[in-house]
C-alpha cells in the first residue's frame, strides 16, 4: 500500500518531530509514503479560506493536481485534510466552480479533475488497526488518555465523510488498541479554540482553559491529538494560562503517531519527544513506563 504525502506548513516547518513519529509509524506498518515536490500551503481552512474562498480552492486544486499515486494522498494535519477534501467537494458539486478553478490552473499549466482521494493519517491507522495490534511491543499501561478529536477531523461531515461528527470512535479505538485507557471527559467534543486566536487571544485561551480543566477533573494524565493546530493550542498555552490564572497545568500532549510509536517500542528520543515543551518524562516515571 502506498500514498502521496501532503505535509502542509505547520508540521514540517514548526513541529518536525510530529512528522518524524508519523513517518516511522507508517514505515513500521509497511505503508509507503511518497514525497511530492512543489506543494504550496494547503491553504489553511481557518485562515486563507476565510478571506478568499476562490484562492483557497485554486491553491488546493493545484496541490491535488500534483498527486499521482493511485492510493490517493494523505496528510498528518486535519486542516490540510479538510482543505483537500473540501476542494474535491466544491469542485465536484458545481461544474461552474470546476471550470472557473481550471481556468486559473491553466495559466500555470495545470489541470485538476477532482478525482484524487484524500485521507487523514488517522483514517489509515484505523483501517490498519489489526496490523497496529500485531506491532505493539510495549503496551501503554498507565496512560490515561484524554482523546481530543478536534473539529476538522470530523466536520463538516458532508465533506469529511469519516467517523461520526458528534460521537466518534476511531481515535479512542486506536488508543485502546495500544493498551492505554481512553478517559471520558466533559467538553470532549468542544473546539480547542486555536482558530479564534487570530481574532481574540483571550477568548482562545478561555476555550483551551475550559478543556484542560475538564481533562484534569476527569483524571487523565495526557492528551492525544491528531491536528498540529490543536497540538499547539494545548501545548504552547499551558504556561501562559499558569502565569495568568495561577493554575498548575503540566499535561503532556501527544500526537497520535507518538503514542503508536511508543507502543511499537520506539525510543522517545528517536521520535523527537525531547522537543516537546511539556516533557513527558515525569509521566513516564510516575507510571513506570
Amino acid at each position, binding site marked *: 500500500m502506498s500514498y502521496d504525502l501532503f505535509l502542509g506548513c505547520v508540521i514540517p516547518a514548526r513541529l518536525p518531530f510530529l512528522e518524524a513519529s508519523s513517518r516511522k509509524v507508517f514505515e513500521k506498518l509497511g505503508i509507503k509514503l511518497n514525497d511530492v515536490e512543489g506543494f*504550496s500551503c494547503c491553504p489553511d481552512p481557518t485562515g*486563507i479560506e476565510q478571506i478568499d474562498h476562490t484562492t483557497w480552492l485554486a491553491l488546493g486544486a493545484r496541490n491535488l493536481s500534483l498527486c499521482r499515486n493511485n492510493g490517493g494522498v494523505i496528510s498528518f494535519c486535519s486542516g490540510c485534510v479538510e482543505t483537500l477534501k473540501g476542494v474535491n467537494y466544491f469542485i465536484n458539486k458545481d461544474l461552474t466552480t470546476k471550470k472557473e478553478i481550471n481556468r486559473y490552473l491553466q495559466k500555470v499549466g495545470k489541470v485538476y479533475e477532482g478525482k484524487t482521494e484524500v485521507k487523514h493519517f488517522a483514517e489509515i491507522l484505523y483501517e490498519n488497526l489489526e496490523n497496529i495490534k500485531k506491532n505493539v511491543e510495549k503496551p501503554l499501561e498507565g496512560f490515561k488518555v484524554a482523546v481530543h478529536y478536534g473539529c476538522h477531523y470530523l466536520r463538516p461531515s458532508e465533506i469529511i465523510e469519516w467517523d461520526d461528527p458528534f460521537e466518534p470512535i476511531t481515535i479512542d479505538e486506536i488508543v485502546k488498541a495500544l493498551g492505554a485507557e481512553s478517559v471520558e471527559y466533559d467538553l470532549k467534543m468542544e473546539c480547542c479554540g486555536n482558530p479564534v486566536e487570530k481574532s481574540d487571544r483571550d477568548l482562545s485561551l478561555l476555550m483551551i482553559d475550559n478543556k484542560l480543566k475538564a481533562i484534569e477533573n476527569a483524571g487523565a494524565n495526557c492528551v492525544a491529538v491528531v491536528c498540529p493546530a490543536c497540538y499547539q493550542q494545548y501545548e504552547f498555552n499551558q504556561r501562559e494560562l499558569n502565569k495568568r490564572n495561577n493554575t498548575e497545568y503540566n499535561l503532556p500532549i501527544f500526537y497520535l503517531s507518538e503514542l503508536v510509536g511508543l507502543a511499537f517500542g520506539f525510543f522517545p528520543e528517536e521520535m523527537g519527544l525531547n522537543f516537546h515543551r511539556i516533557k513527558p518524562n515525569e509521566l513516564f516515571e510516575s507510571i513506570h513506563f
Partner: protein
Amino acid sequence: MSVINFDFRNQVIKHNASLSYCYQCSTCSGGCPVALLTNGEYNPRKIIEEAILGLQDKLIEVQDPNPWLCSTCQKCVELCPQKVELTEIFTLIKNKCFEEGKYPEAFHAQGQAVLENGIAIPYSKAVLSRREKLGLPIITTAPIEEIKTLLRQTNFEQNIIKREAE
C-alpha cells in the same frame, strides 16, 4: 439605522440558496461554543438573520456580530434542522470584508506569507537543522512565481497589496 440592501441579499442567496431555508430557530446559537462563552455577543443566528434581511452595513461595515469570532468548529452546520450551510455563508461574508480591507491583521499576515513564500510558515534555519537531526528529507515547495501567477488570477495579490497601501 440599518438599511436593507436587496442586491447584497440576492448576492448571498445566489451564492448559497440554503440561506432562505432558515426559520430562525436558534439551534445554531445554542450549540455554538463561542456564543456560549461571549454570552451571545457572538451569535450565528443573528448573522444569518442580517444576511436574510440584506443588512450589508451591519455585516461588513460595523461587523455586529463580529464574524471573525467564528471558531469554524462546524457544529452549527451539523445541528441545523434546515440544512442551512451557515459556515459557507459566513465565509462569503468574511470574504466580502476581506475585499473591503476590514479583517484582522493575523489573517493578512498569513495571506502575505503565502503570497511571498507559497507556504504559511517559511522554513527557519533552526527548523532545517532540527529536520536534519530527525533524519527528515529536504522539502521542495512550490515555485513562487507559479503561485504568484495563480494568486493574480484570483485577485488575491491585489487585495493583499491594497490593504498594505491603506
